[in-house]
């Protein structure tokens, strides 16, 4: 029978509320455990402004932190740090009394604020020559540095970098600047045509050669290099093109003009193919543009024409309820394979997506298959 003396802390001021219990999901537990056994710990940070819910970021993942209140209280007890022993009993010191634990749930990086922050920092044609004196130009003065973005946005470093790439944000002189979509399409078209005209392999194209070729079209080398990195891998001065990504971006560039006035599917594909050139024609596929267009059938024409309208999911609200409202305002009912691409960017996995569909939609099955309609007709 071992006996210990349970004591209150002798330094209550320093100890009270100095402890927290954080529930670890298995994958995070592994990371932390490895960290505890090595001198270099993993990068774990809590991020958030005082008015936001805090998130925990590892190197590549984001978790939301939720405080769960316990009806019981948990005492955090440690061995007695003072060497004096009380009689023969070992002392167990209560350092803190807790009423809550922190739960973690995987979350998507919260990068939506980036759009607002970068609204005035667009980089467009004609900006090429002002690299050196950008800060003097007040109208288009870049507002956000990379370091600031890292500080304010609730996303892990890898997710932030990916988010910046997906949003086509350039880092010029430490400042973040969004590349204008039309200009991006121009650059990409130039890159693809130059690949062919310089007869470079798209598996390993010389970066230097392409840069100097585009220099002739007034595209800054820095911009050119970053664009190449977005659409492939740059290593040892060679560019391995991610053909699908590049072709998709060109397709988006074409589609973007048809927001209110849909374009016939065949016409779009023809335009797209001719823009990317013979070499990459085989990659062209409507699947690449999933989540960016709506299909409409123009029945007035004979035979009926399938037309596509630009409808990017990236411009829909992030909040699930608002997104579903928007989607059902656009269309009263959706087929499963039609609606799925428009939910992909707000859910972590398909399980969560199905949960959202259950919560916000009603399913109707008829001869044409399953349709999703709005659950609540009257919002408010």
């Amino acid at each position: 029978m071992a006996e210990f003396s349970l004591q209150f802390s002798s330094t209550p001021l320093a100890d009270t509320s100095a402890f927290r219990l954080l529930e670890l999901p298995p994958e995070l537990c592994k990371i932390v455990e490895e960290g505890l056994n090595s001198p270099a710990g993993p990068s774990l940070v809590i991020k958030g402004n005082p008015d936001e819910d805090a998130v925990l970021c590892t190197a590549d993942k984001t978790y939301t932190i939720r405080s769960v209140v316990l009806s019981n209280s948990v005492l955090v007890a440690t061995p007695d740090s003072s060497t004096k022993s009380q009689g023969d009993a070992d002392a167990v010191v209560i350092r803190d009394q807790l009423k809550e634990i922190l739960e973690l749930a995987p979350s998507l990086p919260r990068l939506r604020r980036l759009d607002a922050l970068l609204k005035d920092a667009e980089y467009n044609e004609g900006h090429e020559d002002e690299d050196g004196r950008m800060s003097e130009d007040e109208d288009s003065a870049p507002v956000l540095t990379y370091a600031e973005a890292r500080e304010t946005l609730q996303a892990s470093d890898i997710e932030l970098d990916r988010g910046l790439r997906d949003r086509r944000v350039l880092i010029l002189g430490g400042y973040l600047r969004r590349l204008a979509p039309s200009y991006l399409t121009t650059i990409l078209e130039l890159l693809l045509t130059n690949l062919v005209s310089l007869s470079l392999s798209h598996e390993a194209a010389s970066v230097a050669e392409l840069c100097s070729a585009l220099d002739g079209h007034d595209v800054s080398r820095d911009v050119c290099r970053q664009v190449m990195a977005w659409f492939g891998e740059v290593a040892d001065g060679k560019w391995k093109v991610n053909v699908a990504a590049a072709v998709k971006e060109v397709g988006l560039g074409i589609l973007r003009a048809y927001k209110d006035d849909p374009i016939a599917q065949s016409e779009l594909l023809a335009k797209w193919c001719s823009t990317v050139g013979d070499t990459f024609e085989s990659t062209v596929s409507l699947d690449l543009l999933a989540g960016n267009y709506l299909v409409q059938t123009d029945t007035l024409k004979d035979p009926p024409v399938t037309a596509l309208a630009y409808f990017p999911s990236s411009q829909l609200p992030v909040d699930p309820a608002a997104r579903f409202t928007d989607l059902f305002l656009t269309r009263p009912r959706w087929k499963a394979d039609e609606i799925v691409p428009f939910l992909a960017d707000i859910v972590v996995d398909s399980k969560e997506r199905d949960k959202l569909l259950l919560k916000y939609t009603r399913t109707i099955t008829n001869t044409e298959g399953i349709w999703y309609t709005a659950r609540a007709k009257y919002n408010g």
Partner: protein
Amino acid sequence: MIIPIHASNVGASTSQHTFPPQLAQFGSEEVILIELQGSLEAEGDKQGQTVGKLRIDDATKKSTLRIGHHLLEGKLVNLPKPLAVLHRRPSDTAADGDTSMNDADEPDSKRPHAGWDVVVIVRRKMVFSKRPMPMMDRVATMVSMESKMGEGGK
């Protein structure tokens, strides 16, 4: 705002003080978690005061906690998910100390450099879930017997 959480063996477990194995089996060598129904309340200055006696039966692995005349029976419970015990890094402004109202969701803005250390990962806890049983020492028994007898005599 960024608040770092440090999880490395540098600086985290500098104390050589560890629990003996009888206690460590209820959590870890550095920290054990004791769960109580309700909470411990004490009047007056409780700094360094003794709360009670914690006994562990080596054979049955049962723990008991005796606080005053109350005896609690505890058991070992495995946590469904491991818990990391975080400890706030002492900072220069630690003297003001009164941050108990802060939620973890609202990190204290007055301490921009506050960080947290992962002390240890705990997978078990000691739970005292039952009501306390009244317990009488021999002396206490005598006294109460006497008083009872006294009452009976009236």
